[in-house]
């Protein structure tokens, strides 16, 4: 009963999604967006007409104005600085616009251009000081804040009366201040245009990448030849210019130059920037984050004003939000990887019946013996991690190595060894096609083809992206083993889509169906996923009928058959289940049966743990990785089974000296060649009573003419 409940809970509750979602970059934008929705919802419930068109248009106008300054601040923060002088630049450019329009009576276009130039110039002062003279951004913009503010104070003492006296009635000016298109305020339209450009600029154009690079690591950016000083300076210029755009709209809307214009504006904009999730110190941020931050701050301040909160409360709310946002941002940036690694491992329920006996004296097909005791060793100490071994029609032996090479041992004595091809990733399963091209699954890279002269070509490294997967599963993370059908389809297994090559044992801890079988068509070059949700699919072998493949599910402890042609096309059926060990590669035997490697034997402790997902999750959270309960892969065996799934024979190395660890085996001319991913050798075992002329690929593709 309890087991049933556990099994149902783990079958239908997607535990694995949390870690996958958290590892997505967009979650960092999602949190402020959720906050925005909560704030918006709360305010719309407590304030009447909060969502009325008039109220929204009003909010949009303010949001547009602060939004421009927010974009400038975002740019400066992303490049690794800060601009405290925006409030004063805002005041000065506001004065500039009104002075030119009201006192000097300039035409509106000239006013716009001159105000933008004024803002850019004020920003350029910051830019030269911080970018070229390399002063500290904080202290420098603090000083320019004072200077610009006192200049503004001096100017309005002289001109505020003449500006207040003027009532310009120019249609274009009024349109800037209060016009709208289809109900959308002019300022919001301009903001949208600039925001879209800003997004493209930051994510698609070279200067935007330079800005992010400098913020991420100024030193590396400098060393890689990015013009650090100029880029930083231009960011401050842009910040000044964007602030002046905001000031233009503000001037056109209100037309006043009060003494406290822009006072404390830097705190509002800074709060918005941090709240949106733009990291202080640089390197991370986006236009969307800036917009979301501005909206949150604006909604809160407007909401509090509407609710008649006292000035002090408004201030406290803003400060409190800034503090909490900065704190969350800093803690998250610091602990992100640690949190993700804690929640990423999501074990699930996996029940197996008690395994068949393997002890001596118990009988049965798995009864242990010592047949592999005296295997002959090839390349002892000269090869590392030959996961798969294969022999060509000229009896040469090929094996992968941990260093990313395919090694070739020459017949007849296999003493001479050479690097046949260098690939760069760890070679796993291998198979020859009709033209003697060697197809290899490379962990972390995909499916590769090596021509007989040793040229390495990529066959495929991606498949179709599945719609419901959070992780990007179009990339091949762990291609494992393959076989080629008569029609030139290559079926290969991808053991897991959740872990990288070096983390594959953790997938065994999860025991979820994370793997899949992928089909690559050599004729069209197309790749598609044939079967999903498999528990670490591993060995693959085309069955004798030519219409199905046999595949091993390592942590499912079973062998299954997938029909790819014929009347049962697309169906899957179990050939063997509840194996006493974890099945690995499958290959043809000379008598029409199949060889199967068991990479390790099951243990009662892990079998029990597999039924206790909560226990494994606690273990993954609290215990260091090297003390986790992992599947045993130290001792295994080779078995032979027939088409019906009956075990015929097994081969063990009881002393554990020569060849206890086996991931693959190939029969060739009366011998069985053994590979193991943890081994520094290849084993060669003399088989009795078999066809001494059996060559796997002669049998598959016909004799060499």
């Amino acid at each position: 009963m309890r087991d049933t409940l556990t099994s149902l809970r783990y079958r239908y509750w997607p535990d694995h999604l949390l870690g996958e979602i958290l590892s997505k970059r967009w979650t960092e934008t999602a949190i402020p967006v959720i906050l925005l929705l909560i704030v918006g919802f709360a305010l719309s419930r407590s304030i009447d007409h909060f969502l009325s068109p008039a109220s929204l248009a009003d909010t949009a106008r303010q949001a547009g104005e602060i939004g421009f300054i927010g974009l400038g601040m975002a740019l400066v923060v992303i490049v690794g600085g800060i601009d405290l002088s925006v409030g004063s630049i805002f005041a000065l450019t506001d004065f500039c616009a009104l002075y030119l329009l009201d006192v000097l009576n300039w035409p509106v276009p000239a006013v716009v251009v001159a105000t933008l130039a004024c803002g850019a110039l004020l920003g350029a002062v910051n830019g030269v000081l911080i970018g070229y003279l390399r002063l500290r951004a904080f202290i420098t913009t603090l000083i320019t804040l004072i200077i610009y503010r006192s200049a503004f104070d001096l100017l309005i003492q002289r001109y505020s009366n003449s500006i207040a006296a003027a009532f310009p009635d120019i249609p274009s000016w009024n349109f800037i201040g209060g016009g709208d298109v289809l109900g959308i305020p002019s300022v919001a339209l301009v903001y949208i245009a600039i925001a879209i450009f800003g997004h493209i600029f930051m994510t698609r154009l070279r200067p935007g990448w330079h800005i992010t690079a400098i913020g991420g690591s100024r030193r590396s950016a400098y060393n890689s030849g990015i013009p650090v000083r100029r880029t930083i300076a231009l960011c401050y210029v842009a910040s000044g210019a964007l602030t002046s755009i905001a000031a233009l709209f503000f001037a056109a809307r209100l037309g006043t130059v009060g003494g406290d214009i822009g006072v404390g504006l830097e705190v509002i904009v800074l709060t918005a920037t941090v709240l949106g999730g733009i990291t202080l110190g640089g390197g991370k941020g986006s236009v969307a984050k800036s917009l979301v931050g501005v909206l949150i701050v604006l909604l809160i301040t407007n909401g509090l004003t509407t609710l008649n909160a006292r000035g002090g409360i408004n201030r406290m709310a803003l400060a409190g939000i800034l503090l909490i946002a900065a704190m969350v941002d800093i803690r998250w940036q610091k602990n992100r990887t640690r949190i993700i690694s804690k929640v990423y491992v999501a074990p699930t329920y996996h029940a197996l019946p008690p395994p068949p006996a393997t002890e001596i004296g118990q009988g049965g097909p798995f009864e242990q013996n010592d047949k592999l005791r005296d295997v002959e060793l090839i390349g002892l100490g000269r090869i590392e991690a030959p996961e798969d071994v294969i022999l060509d029609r000229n009896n040469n032996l090929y094996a992968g190595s941990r260093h990313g090479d395919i090694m070739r041992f020459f017949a007849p004595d296999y003493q001479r060894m050479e690097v046949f091809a260098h690939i760069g990733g760890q070679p796993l399963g291998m198979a020859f096609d009709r033209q003697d091209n060697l197809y290899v699954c490379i962990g972390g890279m995909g499916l590769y083809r090596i021509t007989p002269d040793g040229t390495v070509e990529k066959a495929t490294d991606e498949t179709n992206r599945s719609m419901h997967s959070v992780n990007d599963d179009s990339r091949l993370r762990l291609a494992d083993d393959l076989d080629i059908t008569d029609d030139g389809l290559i079926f290969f297994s991808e053991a897991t889509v959740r872990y990288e090559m070096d983390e594959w044992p953790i997938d065994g801890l999860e025991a979820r169906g994370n793997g899949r079988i992928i089909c690559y068509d050599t004729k069209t070059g197309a790749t598609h996923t044939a079967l999903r949700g498999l528990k670490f699919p591993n060995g693959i072998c085309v069955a004798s009928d030519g219409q199905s493949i046999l595949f091993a599910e390592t942590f499912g402890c079973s062998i299954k058959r997938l029909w790819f042609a014929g009347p049962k096309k697309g169906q899957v059926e179990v050939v063997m289940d509840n194996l006493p060990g974890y099945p690995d590669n499958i290959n043809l035997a000379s008598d029409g049966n199949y060889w199967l490697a068991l990479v390790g034997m099951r243990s009662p402790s892990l079998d029990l743990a597999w039924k206790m997902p909560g226990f494994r999750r606690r273990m993954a959270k609290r215990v260091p990785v090297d003390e986790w309960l992992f599947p045993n892969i130290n001792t295994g065996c080779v078995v032979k089974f027939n088409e019906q799934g009956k075990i015929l024979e097994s081969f063990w190395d009881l002393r554990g000296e020569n060849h206890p660890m086996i991931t693959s085996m190939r029969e060739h001319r009366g011998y069985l060649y053994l590979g193991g991913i943890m081994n520094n050798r290849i084993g060669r075992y003399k088989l009795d009573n078999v066809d001494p002329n059996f060559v796997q690929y002669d049998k598959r593709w016909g004799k060499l003419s």
Partner: protein
Amino acid sequence: MKRLRFNQQEIVFAVFAVLFLAFSIFLRGFLTPENMLTLLQNVAVLGILGLAMALVVIGRGIDISLIAALAVPPGLVLQMVQNGHSLPASLLTAVLLTIAFGLVNGWLIAYAEVPSLFATLATGLLLAGLGQAALFQLDVVQWSDGMQGFERLGQGTILGIPTSIVMFAIACVVVAFLLRQTRWGAYIYAIGDNPYAARVTGIPSRPIIVLQYVVAALIGCFAGLVMAASVNSMPTRVFNSTLIYDVILVVVLGGIGLSGGRGGVLNVIIGTLLIGTMLNGMTIMDISYAGQNLVKGVVLLLAVITDSFLNPRNEETAQQGDI
């Protein structure tokens, strides 16, 4: 040929000397004993705040919230006495509030690892907002009868010296003692010089940083009490002024590098004298408040630029996030 190098302290002192000389010669009424006392009296509060800021800046931080600590707890004392509480009880409450405030600052900076600039910017707003919203009835908290005798903290003379200057001197001695004579002071220098090395050495950097902000807040509160006593009220709107920039000006001009680990009380005194002379001279010249700010800003900018030329930052060792 050996390159001639001056450190900032010497430059600022030279500028101060030149300025003082120029004012003495060209400004009538500058070099009189009365004016000198006024000058010192005016900058005493600024100087005390400068000491608090110096303490934090030496430990590689910055405390923007000093003005809030200056305005709110002393304002609370005045308000509570006005409301009929006794002076000692009010003082105790204010000191507890200040300590709590310093602890919040310190915790945010040392434990939550929020950059000191942002932490204090926000906590300053928070405390000022709290005062505005919950503590004070009016923007200017008035002196009341219960405060009788307390005004001697800021008014009158001791041995012929104005009390506020004596208070500044006492604060200088205390801070100098803390920095130079105690282990805690040495630790602050170590943390300011290289926080990572300090932590590796086994210095309990986090508690020390917390203590640093608590002490800074207490000094700020002390400055507020002196200020309130000298003007017989607490204008809490001082928070909106540019006073904090003057304080930073004092520290930076005095030659306490913002990167920490350098400087001492002497730098604060020099910085205070320069600013005091400058402000006093400009007041005698009848320059408007905004004009004075403009001049201050430009001087500060020149000082920072000069500093960057004399002690240039290296692109290779400039820290990320070093804003």
